[in-house]
């Protein structure tokens, strides 16, 4: 319940900004702010008052694959052939753990964006998107070389689409896995023909952001154990596009 008195509403906004409301109260406050400009202003006021505290936090070096993933997910639908350039450098000016500047990201990052756009796969655009989750799968040692894209819709239908050349299997089989909870371990989504451009499956469990997808090279016929046994060919983590 959003309090009625101005003083209590101001306090409620402060508790929201601090993160001290529970899940139900937080959702209610967020909804209320959408229709009550006064309450939204109270929240914005507390965000501004407390923001200097956020600036005191140790900066952390972003991993090299972070900007390429963001760029791929935000590629404008009407962009031309000129791929988005990688950031020149992201500096971490404060914090003993993270003062170093970061190297220029690989041009492969641009390639990732260009490949997706070239295939007409605008992962996120202004238009409504039917997918609940998207993951770009890359080789573990070549994060700028997208091999597959995974799209999961709101009904948990999974579409795996190959972007590059068919991977070499040397007589083995490619198995498609997903991992939602490390405590439960990965579960198989089936065997994928190396030559296949597209493969479909249905997800069990929640289609939540953070879910891992990977393709491993297994013996012919698939993993004998029900868990990945061979090398990871491609891997990626799903992000929400809600």
């Amino acid at each position: 319940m959003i309090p009625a008195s101005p003083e209590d509403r101001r306090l409620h906004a402060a508790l929201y900004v601090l993160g001290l409301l529970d899940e139900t109260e937080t959702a209610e406050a967020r909804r209320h702010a959408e229709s009550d400009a006064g309450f939204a202003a109270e929240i914005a006021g507390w965000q501004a008052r407390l923001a200097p505290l956020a600036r005191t936090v140790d900066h952390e070096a972003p991993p090299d694959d972070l900007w390429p993933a963001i760029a791929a997910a935000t590629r404008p639908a009407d962009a031309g052939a000129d791929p988005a350039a990688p950031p020149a450098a992201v500096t971490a000016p404060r914090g003993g753990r993270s003062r170093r500047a970061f190297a220029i990201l690989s041009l492969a990052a641009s390639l990732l964006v260009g490949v997706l756009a070239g295939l007409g796969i605008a992962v996120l655009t202004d238009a409504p998107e039917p997918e609940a989750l998207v993951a770009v799968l890359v080789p573990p040692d070549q994060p700028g070389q997208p091999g597959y894209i995974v799209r999961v819709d709101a009904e948990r239908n999974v579409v795996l689409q190959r972007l590059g050349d068919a991977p070499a299997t040397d007589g083995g089989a490619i198995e498609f896995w997903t991992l939602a909870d490390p405590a439960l371990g990965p579960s198989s989504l089936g065997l994928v023909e190396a030559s296949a451009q597209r493969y479909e499956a249905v997800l069990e469990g929640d289609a939540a952001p953070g879910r891992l997808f990977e393709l491993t090279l297994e013996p012919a016929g698939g993993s004998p154990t029900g868990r990945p046994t061979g090398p990871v060919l491609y891997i990626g983590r799903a992000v929400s596009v809600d």
Partner: protein
Amino acid sequence: MDQTRDTSHSTQTLAALIAGCARRDQAALQAIYERYASLMLGIARRLTGRAEQARDIVQEAFIDLWRNAEAFDPALGSAEAWLLSLVRYRALNQNRANGRALRLANAVEVESGAAAGTTAALDRLGDDRLADAIALRDCLDRLAEDRRAMVVQAYLDGHTHDDLARAFARPLGTVKTQIRAALRALQECLG
């Protein structure tokens, strides 16, 4: 890289860059990333205590920014506060979803770390010469030490009322009352 584009974006205010995102200018988003990604990652890491989750939270926050840039209203407050709130609320939601079980597996370690982190945060706030930081530090200084620490740990470490009650060895109701009193005092001081 298009140097002309990058130079023009590097001199723009954050509010102007957010407006650029609303016009679907990806270079504006990239300029924000270059300026703020490391801080946003630090905030998410501190709130969740987990590097892998922090990375995903920042990725989603930038996608949020891209999709909802038009929702930013400069009349309602600072662009920086708005931007940082995107990552804070995502991290807080993640903590709620996790039940914080993993993060608080070793409560003693977490609490002693939070106390040290509070001291460091207040020292750094004192070094920040921007007007909003000076005002906040001045008003936090007027609070009793324990109440000041409760506010800082809730904001920076994502501590809940239960966490604070355990950390300060006080009944839950007492902590709730003290936090509210601290916020009222801050409101009065900061205006």
